[in-house]
């Protein structure tokens, strides 16, 4: 089933290493922002977390597409796990975004950050994904409906983003200025290391969760097979 695979323990060690490197770079190497100070450091986590969430949702949609085209139920678990990871990282995006807003502008929520609002919409969408899944009996129907909904989610991302930008014209939120995106080389390096660490973390969590779910499924099959006819 799986090809060459880095064993989980090695991957975990790798993630720990990357996270350590990221933390060092963010807190010790990257220069402190003149205006926002230490709170600006959240940016090194908030944005990569958001990007990782997108990557997870994208993976979920890709696996969903594979499920629909091959009918191999293996992809159902993979798609579900990816969406689950995406939702976790999405929730973290909202959390870190809120913390950053509080640290920067003194409010726990602002409608002026398009990305934050987008994640709110996506969070609602993917919560509905889980509600749908939990309300269906396990089987091919649940797999297919989940897959279709996951595909709709990924289509919703760009369309929603566009909508939110357009909405700003008539909603007129209080706009908080944020300093430009010119990053120095060290800042960019810190950002990349952080992003790599988070992607690795997401991938590890994905693998572990998938492993757990597969073991559950195999156990069930075994039990089924051993039940006296």
């Amino acid at each position, binding site marked *: 089933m799986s090809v060459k695979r880095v064993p989980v323990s090695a991957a975990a060690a790798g993630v720990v290493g990357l996270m350590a490197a990221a933390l060092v770079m963010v807190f010790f190497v990257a220069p402190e922002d003149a205006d926002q100070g230490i709170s600006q450091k959240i940016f090194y986590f908030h944005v990569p977390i958001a990007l990782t969430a997108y990557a997870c949702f994208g993976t979920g949609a890709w696996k969903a597409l594979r499920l629909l085209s091959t009918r191999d139920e293996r992809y159902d678990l993979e798609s579900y796990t990816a969406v689950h990871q995406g939702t976790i990282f999405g929730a973290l995006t909202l959390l870190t975004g809120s913390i950053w807003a509080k640290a920067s502008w003194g409010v726990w929520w602002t409608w002026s950050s398009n990305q934050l609002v987008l994640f709110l919409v996506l969070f609602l969408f993917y919560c509905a994904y889980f509600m749908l899944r939990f309300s269906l*009996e*396990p*089987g*091919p129907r*649940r797999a297919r409906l989940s897959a279709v909904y996951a595909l709709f989610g990924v289509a919703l991302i760009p369309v929603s983003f566009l909508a939110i930008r357009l909405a700003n014209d008539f909603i007129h939120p209080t706009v908080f200025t944020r300093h430009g995106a010119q990053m120095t080389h060290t800042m960019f390096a810190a950002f990349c290391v952080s992003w790599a660490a988070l992607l690795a973390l997401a991938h590890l969590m994905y693998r572990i969760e998938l492993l757990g779910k597969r073991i559950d499924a195999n156990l069930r099959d075994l039990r*089924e097979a051993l039940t006296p*006819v």
Partner: protein
Amino acid sequence: MLIRAREVEKRYGPVRALRAVSFEVAERGCLLVTGPNGSGKTTLLRLVCGLAAPTRGMLEVGVDRSQLGFVGHEPLVYRDLTALENLDLYGRLYRVPERRERIGMLLERFGLWDVRNQRVSAYSRGMTQRLAICRSLLHDPRLLILDEPYTALDDEGAAVLDRELDALARERTLVVATHDVGRIGPLAETRLALA
């Protein structure tokens, strides 16, 4: 062989609805499926007509949807439409040639001509079942799959169905699930007993 099944199994998550079965049905053959409630007769029939896909095993059915007729546990008709409107809709979807004539003929044969303009909600269960059978025969299918077709039929309805199946068994392929082994028994060449 029109239908070929090898170790076909159906599971819904942890629940096994149909234990592994293997069988073959030749063109113009007749397969009788028996078994107690819960043994998977309905599941098997749904697999054969394509409403569900097997979890394991190989199932080949040599006809496409336009040549397949199905009578299930539910009549598969619209309550608020009349018999005529129901059959007209299905007639269009199945591209039945000389639709009106064929509908008229079937309704008459099954004793529903006089009530053709009444809504199905006004029918008795027996009449609804007869309409369901009409619906399944409308497009003259090569393969007819019947799940307990005698349910709710009165003596007259059952007699008509007997005649129909008798005539059909010679020209068409039948797969019938029933408790009423006496009726189909003589027609059936193959039997499949699900535990």
